[in-house]
């Protein structure tokens, strides 16, 4: 997994609530057996008309096509558990999503892929949304170590992040590797389980 330490970028505004993972990447793009190349499916139905021709969409505007930050509405990533959603965001170059709240599974999936999801109070998201609307004139910086967001006009917002997840993200750590270090505990647990719950 790629580390996340800090980034500076324009932020793309997507002011919709309840953006579900079907909207982030519709089912026809889930037939892949790979993790890469999913950018083509990202926000497909917001991005194209029924014939597949491009329509106006924020991430295709010149000011935002290289945005690494997405500012969006409440309950982002609700719906299916598809990890294709963060994979597609990553393929687009998005490394940080800021919203008033996230659905649990999506939130979790982001950390496994080097994306930092930041939940902030609605007023702060509204402020950043206004900044984001200013396009290439407004650059936002996100620093994970200090847990700070710096707006284009110098204002600073602090954010919360779970200590374990922060550590993994800062160092690009692979969870499976960490768990293998605890193999002995797993062996012991299984032995106990076998003795007390033999039907399992």
């Amino acid at each position, binding site marked *: 997994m790629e580390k996340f330490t800090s980034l500076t970028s324009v932020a793309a505004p997507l002011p*919709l*609530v*309840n953006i*579900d993972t*079907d*909207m982030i990447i*519709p*089912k*026809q793009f*889930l*037939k*892949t*057996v*790979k*993790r890469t190349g999913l950018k083509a499916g990202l926000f497909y*139905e917001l991005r194209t008309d*029924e014939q597949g021709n491009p329509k106006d969409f924020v991430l295709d505007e010149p000011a935002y096509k290289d945005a690494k930050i997405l500012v969006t*509405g*409440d*309950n982002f990533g*609700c*719906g*299916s*558990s*598809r*990890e294709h959603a*963060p994979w597609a965001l990553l393929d687009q170059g998005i490394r940080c999503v800021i919203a008033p*709240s*996230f*659905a*649990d*599974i999506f939130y*979790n*999936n982001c950390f*496994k*892929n080097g994306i930092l999801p930041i939940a902030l109070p609605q007023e702060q998201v509204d402020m950043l949304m206004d900044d984001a609307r200013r396009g290439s004139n407004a650059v936002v910086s996100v620093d994970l170590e200090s847990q700070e967001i710096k707006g284009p006009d110098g204002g600073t917002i602090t954010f919360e992040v*779970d*200590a*374990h997840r922060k550590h993994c993200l800062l160092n690009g750590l692979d*969870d*499976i590797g*960490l*768990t*293998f270090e*605890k*193999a002995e*505990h*797993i062996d012991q*647990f*299984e032995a106990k*389980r076998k003795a007390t*719950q*033999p*039907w*399992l």
Partner: protein
Amino acid sequence: MSNPRTLFDKIWDNHVVHRQDDGTCLLYIDRHLVHEVTSPQAFEGLRMTGRKVRRPENTLAVPDHNVPTSGRAQGIADEESRIQVETLSRNCEEFGVQLFGMNDIRQGVVHIIGPEQGFTLPGMTIVCGDSHTATHGAFGSLAFGIGTSEVEHVLATQTLIQKPAKNMRITVEGDLLPGVTAKDMILHIIGVIGTAGGTGYVIEYAGEAMRKLSMEGRMTICNMSIEAGARAGLIAPDETTFEYIKGRPLAPKAGNWEQAVAYWKTLPSDAGAKYDKEIIVKAADIEPQVTWGTSPEDVVGISAFVPAPSDGRDANKKSAIERSLDYMGLKAGQRVQDITIDKVFIGSCTNGRIEDLREVARIAKGRKVAESVYAMIVPGSGLVKLQAEEEGLDEIFTAAGFDWREPGCSMCLAMNADRLSPGERCASTSNRNFEGRQGRGGRTHLLSPAMAAAAAIAGHLVDVRDYE
């Protein structure tokens, strides 16, 4: 342990392998269900790192999302779908995981086959790369959906790194009115707490009305916990649960049965256990429900009217209602019962079990699907299909003009050939009415199996109680 604990607390405590100082736990996973869409990259990860599946015997795989629901003998026409299903077979063979292939009678939607086989048992931790894993919570097991990276983690280690969720209890007091089902209860609950209402929580469903539900009904309730924002739903195990499990192929056998039941009886929440949030709903307030919008919380009783943007509680919700009305092609203030439909989909892990099909048959018997409607019934598994046929339900369906198909996810997410065309309107027993969920531009109204059957016959949304 002296402190009274909830059902969730007990299952959690029983599965902690290791706890870090910050509260992060390594949690043991008893059962892992796998399907073709969210697993290929996980198996690929194992191959790349030379890792094995730690407990293949506790892992069960099935293709369900991509499989066709007719003409199976010809295989899968769509090349990408076929490759995905074949990849699952190859991975299962290589890693020694049991697979119910497309032509196995036991094949079906992953959340239908787990309980059907007795793979799902009380007190367990169960995961699957699928958000509707919450379904299995109906047995009093902690079951939740995970992403593909976590699928790989479970395959390799049989554990997950997790922090405990908060406890919420939703109590439904009193008895349901006639004609009101588990589906109406859960849709109503989602309307009350909203699609983000359960975020960060595990919901335990309690109360008289819940206790009286069959296992099928309980599965319908827990299934849609995710639409209420919760990763998992739970219902305490009781005699109904044990009765359902007994004798299933993977259920504890004679010598272990009593011991297992004795353990399961220790699971229900202790008196005085603390919940972080409590919600009480009166069963008598629930009438048959139907969604009008593009979020499961956009739900009303069948006698109601389509809301207006001005009914939204804040600016965001007002604009969401406006967007939904536009997408759904509806007018604010329109009578819900005047909404005409083009298609009906009966099936999915929410409502594809035998009891659901019996409900449909009860309404459909001796009646005809409206001329203007195409109605399909997709059983949840091969065994559900077989049982329905043994009971003669298929004859009632075909005589009434329903299309009786092969098991799978089908038009619940329209990844196979079953889908809506732009602008088409569908009454569906599935769980999501998101934009494009059943096909780009398609319009979904979620409702119960009985309500869907009545809508098929009437050609528009209708109160099933007029059809009893």
